């Protein structure tokens, strides 16, 4: 047993694992209609490859990865595409997003599947295969795995590859069951990752409330050199930053990536998806989802992506009375949904039908008494009370001085606040305001540049006209069509001049800081 490096703060939370982790993973329903969002990952939305009326096979690519940070999307079952349109998706914003609607035919006819001989192929081809199989982080952050499996971008060689089986959020047990039942598959996927990244050591972190999962993983790792590390049950040990610290003692820089300190971290379910994609040629079509809380038969289900939540709840016996909130993810970081008609996506690790006894009674917030309970539990070692103070006063500069963007929104501070202040909500608000301000600034800068360019163009044209007037020569007779061309020339020239400018300052490019946060934030729920 090697030493662990406990992180600051964190919480012992209620567990509620036993409700759903007793039975084995059930097969999900085959709904008559699947709603498959084209954006189930961090990065650019996939480009649709199908349209209404197309027949699709199970596993057929229906959305193509668009750019480096993107992932493909596939038909989870065979059938007919009836629409490609905006539909409600499970997202905190509640906004609809582009989806491919497939009416299933019930035949489950597969595309031709082909295993990838990853040991023979060039690593870029293996990553390409994973990208085309739509493999993303299944812990909840859904960052394209192929990007993280590229060691080329970093000068530093990889010291440690970490597999995250901590599953620290209460209620969620999908990784627990997956490790117990499919440890061999997870380790097979791990072999692929190890082949691509060549780490010095491989550590698998599992919280000590999952002894069966740890035993299964230890057995599956026998003879591989991969080490299972049982870590104390303490939320948020499944957050990448905390798990890396716990296992290696290294801190991921707050403005950096795990790779900067020679570490890379994947969820156990992601490793399993890699295994299916490489060893069987199966893209990501389904995932294990914990359905728990106020449902008749809580458990874990392997669900086709695009299956409506309602169908899944029905499979688990339906709701008990008194469901107050429907939460996707865990109670600490998950978000509440308006409606159970939304589809399961690659990010859906848990559906929690929370009843009154699981939720706190609504309490009016009191003033902050600066007791510091939040400081004690903050795993990022922030001063949450100061962040709150400045966020509330809209002093966003000061909030950034207090490292607002190091906040991982784990919710520990809000949970322990005796004044019942929704602290995390204030931090999200402040972050959004800062992002909005930065976008505004960029827009203003772009407008300024455009205005400047226009003034210069007008001036230039004026000078050209004057020059023309000075050296006025008798007009030559030209055909009408030719005259038109001559007239168009300056326009084309102007267009050509404008193009590189636009290319140099793209408006819609995602902010690097956003991408960094997204990558660093992968956690198990």
């Amino acid at each position, binding site marked *: 047993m090697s030493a662990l490096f406990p992180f*600051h703060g964190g919480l012992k939370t*209620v567990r509620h694992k036993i409700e759903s982790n007793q039975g084995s993973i059930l097969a999900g329903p085959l709904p008559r209609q699947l709603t498959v969002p084209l954006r189930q990952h961090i990065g650019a939305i996939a480009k649709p490859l199908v349209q209404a009326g197309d027949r699709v096979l199970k596993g057929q690519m229906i959305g193509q990865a668009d750019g480096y940070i993107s992932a493909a999307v596939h038909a989870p079952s065979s059938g007919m595409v009836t629409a490609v349109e905006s539909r409600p998706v499970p997202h905190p914003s*509640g906004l609809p997003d582009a989806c491919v609607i497939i009416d299933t035919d019930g035949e489950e006819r597969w595309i031709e599947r082909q295993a990838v001989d990853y040991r023979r192929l060039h690593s870029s081809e293996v990553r390409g295969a994973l990208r085309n199989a739509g493999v993303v982080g299944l812990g909840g952050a859904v960052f394209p795995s192929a990007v993280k499996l590229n060691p080329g971008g970093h000068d530093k060689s990889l010291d440690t590859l970490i597999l995250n089986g901590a599953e620290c959020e*209460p209620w969620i047990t999908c990784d627990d069951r997956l490790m117990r039942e499919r440890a061999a598959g997870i380790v097979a996927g791990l072999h692929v990752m190890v082949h691509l990244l060549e780490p010095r050591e491989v550590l698998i972190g599992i919280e000590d409330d999952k002894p069966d999962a740890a035993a299964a993983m230890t057995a599956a790792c026998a003879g591989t050199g991969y080490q299972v590390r049982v870590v104390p049950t303490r939320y948020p040990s499944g957050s990448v*930053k905390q798990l890396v*610290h716990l296992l290696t003692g290294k*801190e*991921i*820089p*707050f*403005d*950096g990536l795990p790779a900067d300190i020679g570490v890379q971290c994947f969820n156990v379910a992601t490793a399993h998806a890699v295994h299916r994609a490489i060893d069987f040629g199966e893209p990501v079509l389904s995932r294990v989802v914990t359905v728990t809380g106020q449902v008749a038969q809580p458990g874990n289900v392997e669900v086709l992506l695009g299956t409506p939540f309602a169908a899944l709840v029905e499979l688990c016996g339906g*709701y008990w009375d008194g469901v*107050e*909130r*429907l*939460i996707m*993810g865990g*109670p*600490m*970081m*998950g*978000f*509440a*949904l*308006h409606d*159970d008609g939304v589809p399961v996506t690659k990010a859906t690790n848990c559906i929690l039908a*929370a009843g009154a006894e699981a939720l*706190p009674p609504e*309490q*009016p917030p*009191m*003033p*902050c*008494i*600066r*007791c*510091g*309970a939040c*400081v*004690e539990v903050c*795993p*990022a*070692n*922030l*001063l949450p*009370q100061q962040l709150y103070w400045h966020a509330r006063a809209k002093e966003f500069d000061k909030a950034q001085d*207090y*490292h607002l963007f*190091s906040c991982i*929104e784990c919710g520990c501070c*809000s*949970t*322990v*606040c*005796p*004044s*019942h202040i*929704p602290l*995390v909500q204030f931090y999200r608000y402040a972050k959004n305001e800062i992002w909005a301000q930065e976008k505004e600034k960029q827009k203003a800068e772009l407008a300024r540049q455009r205005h400047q360019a226009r003034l210069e163009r007008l001036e230039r044209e004026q000078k050209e006209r004057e020059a023309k007037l000075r050296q006025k020569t008798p007009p030559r007779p030209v055909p009408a069509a030719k005259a038109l061309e001559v007239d168009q020339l300056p326009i084309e020239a102007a267009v050509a001049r404008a193009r590189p400018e636009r290319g140099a300052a793209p408006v819609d490019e995602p902010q690097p800081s956003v991408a960094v946060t997204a990558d660093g934030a992968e956690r198990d729920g």
Partner: protein
Amino acid sequence: MRFKTATSPHILRETGVGQVMRRVLYAMAPGIAALAWFFGWGVLVNLTLATVVALVAETLMLAARGKPLALHLGDCSAVVTAWLLAAALPSLAPWWLTALGVAFAIVVAKHLYGGLGYNPFNPAMVGYVVLLISFPREMSTWPIPHGVGQAHVLGLPETLEIVFGGAGRLVVDGLTGATPLDVLRTQLGLGLTVTEIRNSPVFGIVSGSGWEWAALGFLAGGLWLVYIRAADWRIPAGMLGGLAAIATVFYLVDPQRYAPPWFHVWSGAAIFGAFFIATDPVTASTTPRGRLIYGAGIGVLVYVIRAFGGYPDGVAFAVLLMNIAAPTIDLYTQPRVFGARGR
């Protein structure tokens, strides 16, 4: 099916400002019981009177500020202020002294300075200092503790008569005397040595007779507060550590002119102040390192006031002085954020 939404986290600990404040009240019980044993019914009369005045003042101020009454009265913060002040007042203080101090603490030092969570100074200590400066005679008239040669033990009716009827009888009956720290101070001024002074019957095993048992009671309650994490250990540790450190230095320099560190730590309001007054989170430093510094600052100031200042004890002044420094301490003691480069 449609559901109501809310933002994460969706679970909360069962805690509340009221719970925190009530725990402080429970923790004061042993110390107050010891005070009542040694200084008579007056302690409890003070406490009751202070509580009533505090609740009335709090209600009026909340109403004037348009705050929901039930929610804020339920937080018990006014009662805590009342008890802290009452425990610090002489046990046979006239009723108007207690009422005035508590009213000033709640109306001015708490609400006019911003209300719960916003007041920069510890309200109980502001009330105490106002009384100490305005009514020095009444504030230094402490009864002689039980068992140290009192003329007779006062019953409840007599106590009420003195508190509400006038303090004239006290002096006549020889019921009052100087506090141990007062004795130490005046006699050092007369050129006596610490050893000589310590022979006076006002001194007990470690510090003042009677007083030392109250200190023990407050220590027990305070340690419980720390154990259940209702108070941060750093503030009392810093304060008592700071006081002991500077007292040790002077004691080593001249043990006949300066009382030993254990005497200082166990005397006056040091223990009570360390666990119950300095730990008021609203007015204290909030960073972990800052709380140690804040506490140590109070400890050092208490010693400086006791040994070189114009008052026998200095907890109230020391706390108020460090209250002003708390924001600055916070600014310079921010913890190293997870993942910050360089250590």
